[in-house]
């Protein structure tokens, strides 16, 4: 994973709460077996509306999504994160994220920054008044900056550290492989096993 410490890019206001992962990427796009190439699928249904924010010229280079509360709820599809990244987003701001979406973001180098709703609304106003304004998301200081607005954001320490170091989770866990093996030796024999297959 690429290291990320700070990112500055055009902020895109998405003035809507409860943006579930079915909206971020509809299920019909989940049939692909690759991890990339989902940029066309991002908000696919909303993008057919010419007034949708991503269709506005000022936001065409957008890379920081400023969303309403409860962004990324619903389905566990990591495709939602892949689609945001493929489109060019590097960070999403919201006052609350779906748990699984937030976890998936951390695995894929997308910064999910939890910003107080009041600050989200200030940033929305700034972006509406000056479309094309950039937003800086700084992991080191845990702040977002937009025009004269400087607001703190929350992200858990472990995810922040992994993002800043660009670390691969599996590699980290495999450093403790002996602990896994030791744990396995303590598991009761009656715990379920899928093999050999038993059928009714």
């Amino acid at each position, binding site marked *: 994973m690429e290291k990320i410490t700070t990112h500055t890019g055009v902020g895109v206001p998405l003035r809507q709460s409860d943006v579930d992962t079915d909206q971020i990427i509809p299920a019909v796009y989940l049939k692909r077996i690759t991890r990339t190439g989902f940029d066309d699928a991002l908000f696919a249904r909303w993008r057919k509306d010419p007034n949708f924010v991503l269709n506005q010229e000022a936001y065409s280079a957008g890379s920081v999504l400023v969303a309403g509360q*409860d962004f990324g709820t619903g389905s566990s599809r990591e495709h939602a994160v892949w689609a945001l990244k493929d489109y060019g987003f590097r960070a999403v701001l919201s006052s609350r994220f779906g748990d699984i979406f937030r976890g998936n973001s951390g695995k894929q180098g997308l910064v999910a920054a939890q910003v107080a709703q009041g600050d989200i609304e200030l940033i929305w106003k700034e972006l509406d008044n000056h479309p094309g304004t950039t937003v800086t998301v700084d992991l080191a200081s845990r702040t977002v900056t937009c025009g004269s607005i400087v607001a703190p954001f929350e992200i858990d320490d472990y995810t922040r550290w992994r993002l800043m170091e660009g670390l691969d989770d599996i590699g980290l866990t495999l450093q403790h492989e002996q602990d896994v093996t030791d744990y396995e030796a303590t598991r009761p024999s009656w715990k*379920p096993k899928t093999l050999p297959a038993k059928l009714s």
Partner: protein
Amino acid sequence: MSSREQVAGAPRTLAEKVWNAHVVREGSGEGGARQPDLIYIDLHLIHEVTSPQAFEGLRLANRPLRRPDLTIATEDHNTPTLEIDKPIADLTSRTQIDTLRNNCAEFGVRLHSLGDKEQGIVHVVGPQLGLTQPGVTVVCGDSHTSTHGAFGALAFGIGTSEVEHVMATQTLSLKPFKTMGINVEGTLRPGVTSKDIILAIIAKVGTGGGQGYVLEYRGSAIRALSMEARMTICNMSIEAGARAGMVAPDQTTFDYLEGRPHAPQGEDWDAAVEYWKTLRTDDDAVFDAEVTIDADELEPFVTWGTNPGQGVSLSQSVPAPEDFEDENARAACERALDYMDLTAGTPMKDIRVDTVFLGSCTNSRMEDLRTAADIIRGREKDPDIRMIVVPGSARVRLEAEAEGLDQVFKDFGAEWRFAGCSMCLGMNPDQLEEGERCASTSNRNFEGRQGKGGRTHLVSPLVAAATAVRGTLSSPSDLDPVDGAAAVAA
């Protein structure tokens, strides 16, 4: 639920007990700086949609799949529910299914393919085989993995990166969850089901209220429920924002499991039951949050909007934006009414639907099919309604056919399909048309979830069946009595 904070003998919740029993390695540090715990995963369920990129990751890193004997795969999301003996017509769907078959063969994973007697929705298959057991950790690249919590398992959905992590290590790095007790006390009225309980809970807690929590459903109304009804409740925990929901195991759980193919046998069974009986929240344990629901007061519950928290009792009317104090909720209501093409103040029972879908990992098990069949037996379907019945698994379909339920549905004029996720998410050809309105026993009423422009009302199997008779959202108590059909007063 930090295991470090647990003093020996200190009271613990059910979720904490299961978590503590699976800590491979405790994370170091304190408070916000604390690293995650490494948690062992007892059972990994796989399907075609969220696994191909994970298998590819293993291949690229030249890593083996650590425990094929704790892993099982099935085909469900993409599979057709008609003509399953023919090649899948949609080429991208067929490629994804073929990819799962090749990956399972390469990595030694047991797979139940389309046409196999054990094929079906992954969350129906695990419990039916007896693989889902009290006190185990279960994960799957699917948010409705919370279903398995009905057995007292800690079960939750994960993304594809985590799927790959479990394949490679049989563990996950996780921050401890908070715990929320949901107390449902009292007795359900006739015609009110566990689906109504969970829809009422989500309306109360909100779609984000459970974020960061494991929910534990408890109280006399939960204890009185069958395993299938408990699965319906735990299934929709994610719709309240919680990754997992649990019910403490009891005799109902043990009776359901005993004799299933992968349930322990003989002395193993006795040892397992002895352990399972310890899996309950201690009397003095404290939840981080608690919610209480009065079961006596509950009525059939349905959604009017585009998230599962936007629901009301069936006897009520479509709300108006002004009914909400919160500005965001008001805006969400306005947008939902527009998408759903509904007018505030319309009685829910006046809403006419086009399609009734009985299926999904929420409500596609034998009990769901039986209760719906009991309502429609001897009655006539509204001629303009299309009703699709999709059993949760091939085995459910066979059992239903052995009881003659398929004939009840067919006589009624419903379509009797093969098993899969089907119209719950519309990845296969079973989709709503633009503007079509559906009473659905599934779990999500998101915009376009069941097909582009489709409108979804989430309902119980009983409401689905009554709606298919009347053509408008209805409860069984709205139906005229018929000889041979179930009399339900509500």
